[in-house]
C-alpha cells in the first residue's frame, strides 16, 4: 500500500462527484486557438491559468500562475508564458499541461479537511481558512463519522458560527457548511482509503452564491 496525492484537477473532480461545488476548470495541452476558444466558452472570464506539473510545487515562485485573464488573446499569451517559465524553471520538468479555471470572487475563506490519526482513524476538521489557518488555530475536530449534531457543534466551536449570524452585512449560510461537513464525512465512510482531504479555501459568500471549493487536495491509500 502507498499514499497517492491526487492533483488539483483530480481532487476537484472527486469532490464534485460527491456533491461539493468546485471551481470549473480545464486542462490545456496544445494552446491552440480551438482549445482556447473552447475553454473560454466553458469557463468565461475572468480566468486563472497555472502550470500542471508534479515537478513544480511552488507555481507562483516559478512564474507559472497568471491571474485575472479577461480575453481569449490574454489566455493564449498566458499559455505561452507559463510554458516558457516552466521550462526555464526546470528544463526536464514533467508537464501535464496548463490548467485554466474560473477566477472566482473572494469571500470568507473557510477550511474543511480530513486527516488520519494513528489511533482514532479519520478526523474531520472545519475552521477559518486562508493563510492564517496555522496562526489562528480556529478549527474544530471530530472523529468520522460525524452526526448532524456533531457537525453543528463543530461549527459552533469556530468563528464561522458568528459569521453565520452576520458579519459586516453578510450572513453566511450555516446549513450549507453543515451540509458540506456531512458530505465529507459520508465520502470518507464510503471510501475508507481516503487519508487526507484539504479544502482550503472553501469560499463562502453571504449572498446566496454557493460555497465553492477553490483549492483541494485528496490523498488516498492505493495498491502499489
Amino acid at each position, binding site marked *: 500500500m502507498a499514499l497517492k496525492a491526487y492533483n488539483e484537477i483530480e481532487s476537484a473532480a472527486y469532490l464534485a462527484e460527491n456533491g461539493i461545488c468546485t471551481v470549473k476548470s480545464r486542462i490545456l495541452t496544445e494552446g491552440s486557438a480551438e482549445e482556447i476558444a473552447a475553454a473560454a466558452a466553458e469557463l468565461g472570464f475572468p480566468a486563472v491559468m497555472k502550470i500542471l506539473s508534479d515537478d513544480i510545487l511552488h507555481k507562483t515562485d516559478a512564474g507559472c500562475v497568471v491571474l485575472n485573464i479577461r480575453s481569449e488573446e490574454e489566455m493564449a499569451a498566458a499559455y505561452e508564458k507559463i510554458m516558457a517559465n516552466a521550462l526555464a524553471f526546470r528544463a526536464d520538468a514533467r508537464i501535464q499541461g496548463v490548467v485554466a479555471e474560473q477566477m472566482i470572487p473572494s469571500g470568507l475563506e473557510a477550511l474543511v479537511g480530513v486527516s488520519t*490519526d494513528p489511533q*482514532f482513524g479519520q478526523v474531520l476538521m472545519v475552521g477559518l481558512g486562508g493563510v492564517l489557518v496555522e496562526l489562528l488555530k480556529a478549527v474544530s475536530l471530530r472523529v468520522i463519522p460525524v452526526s448532524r449534531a456533531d457537525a453543528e457543534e463543530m461549527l459552533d466551536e469556530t468563528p464561522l458560527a458568528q459569521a453565520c449570524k452576520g458579519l459586516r452585512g453578510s450572513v453566511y449560510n450555516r446549513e450549507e457548511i453543515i451540509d458540506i461537513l456531512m458530505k465529507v464525512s459520508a465520502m470518507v465512510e464510503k471510501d475508507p482509503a481516503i487519508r487526507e482531504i484539504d479544502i482550503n479555501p472553501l469560499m463562502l459568500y453571504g449572498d446566496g452564491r454557493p460555497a465553492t471549493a477553490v483549492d483541494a487536495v485528496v490523498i488516498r491509500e492505493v495498491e502499489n
Partner: protein
Amino acid sequence: MKKLFEPDGIAIAGASTNPTKAGYVALRNMKEKEYPGKVYPINPNETEILGYKCYKALSEIEGNVDLVVLIMPARLIYDIMDDFDKRMEEKHDVKYIVCAAADYAETQTEEGVRRQARLMQSAEKYGVRVIGPNCIGVIDNRTKVDTTFVDTGVPFSEFGEPTGITFISQSGALASAVLMEGAGRVFPVLYNKFISIGNMADIDFVDLLEYLENDDTTKVIGMYMEGYRDGRKLAETLRRITAKKPVVILKVGRSEKGSKAANSHTGSMAGADNVYDAMFKQYGVIRVDTIDELIDTMQALDALPLPKGKNHFLYSQAGGPGIYCTDAIAAAKNLETPLVSEETKERLRASQLPMANICSPEGYADITASASVANHVDGLRIVLEDDAVDSVTFITVVPTFLPQIELANALVEMEKSIPEDRKKPVYYCVMAGAYTAPARKIMEENGLCTFNTPDKAVKAADNMTRYALYRARKAGEE
C-alpha cells in the same frame, strides 16, 4: 471480574511489620475496613503481622487464594513467580494478580521489561488476569477489599456509606491524590470502587469500562488517563457507556511537553490530544482540567439529578460573590439565563427583605447579607418551583449572626420535602474555608452538594448540564 472485587482469600507478597512500608499499610487498611475474608501475608521472616498469620511462601497457604497482591521489590519477581507456578500446578486457585510494585516495563529498561515478561508468562500460562504493574491496586468499599498502601490520614469510621463513584487511574500517585483529596473533604468521599491500572500489562481501560458498564453499584465513572493504544476501541466503549452513565476524564498531555512526559511515564503511546478532546466531546465524555474539578463533578453526578435543560438561576446572599459567580456562569458554555414568571418574582419579593434585588438582571437574585435562615430557604424553594429554572447555584457567606447549623438543617429539610420526580440540581456554595465546615458537613451527609467557592459550583453545574444535554440529544436520535 467479580473475583477481583469479591475474592475468596487474598495473599500479600511483601507484607511487612514496618509501619512505613507499603506491605504494612495495605494490611492495616484491610484490617481497619474489617475485610471479612481471609488475608494471608507472605514474609519468610515473620510469623504474624497485625494478627494475620504469616506464610513463608504462596505455595504454603492451605486455604483458597483468589487474589495475589505483589508489593515486594520488583527484583524478587522471578522467585515469587516460580513459587506462584508451584502453587498453580497444585491448587489452580488464583484468578487475579495485583502487581503494585514499580520498576517493571515502564522504566523502558531491559531488566524492567524482562520482569514484566516473567510476570505475564505465568499469568498467561494459568489464565490469571493481572492489574498493573506500577500501580496502587484496587479498592472495593462495599466488599472492603483494599490492596492499596495509601494512608489518607482520615480514620475509616469518619467516612459515610460508599458513593456510586468508581475511579480508574493510569497513575498510582495521582490515584492516591484523588483518594486523599476525597478523604480530606468536609465530608470524606468514600469511593465505590477504585482501580489503579499502571502499566496495563493485561487489564486495561477498556476491560474495566466494560465491567463497570454493567456494575450496578457504579453510578459515575471517573478516569485519569495519559493515553491508550487502541483509540477506536476506547471511543466505541465510551460511547456505549455514556449513553447509560456519566464518565468524567482527567486526561493529561494537552501540551506537547506534557504529551512527551506521558509517553515516557506509563510507557503508553499518547495520541494527538486534540483528537482525544474531539472524541470526548463527540461521545459525551466530560473532560475536566483539575483534580478539584474532577472530584466536584463526580460528586455532583453521583448526588444530584441531571438538569432538564440549560437554564441556570443564581441565588445569592452576597453581592460580590454573586457578581463573581455571574461572570463564571456567563463564561460557562452550557448555562443560560432563565426568565422566571412574574408570579415567581412577586412571590420572591414577598419572601425577602425590602432591599433584596429580585431578577435584576434576569436569572439572578441577591437576598442581601441580612437574610435570615427563612429568607434563604423560602426564596430558594420559590425559585426551584418555577418551570423556567432547570438548576440553581446558591451562594451564602454565613455572617456570624446567621446560625449555620440551623441553615444547613433547614436546607436539608427543604430538599427532602421535594418529591423525587420534581427534584432539580442545586449547587450549594457555602463560603468559605474552615468556618462553614460544620454546615457543609451536615448538608453533604444528607446528600446535598456543597462547594467552598462559586467558580467550582459553576464548573460542576456546567459539566452536569453538558452531560444532560448530550443524553437528551442521544435519546432524541434513537
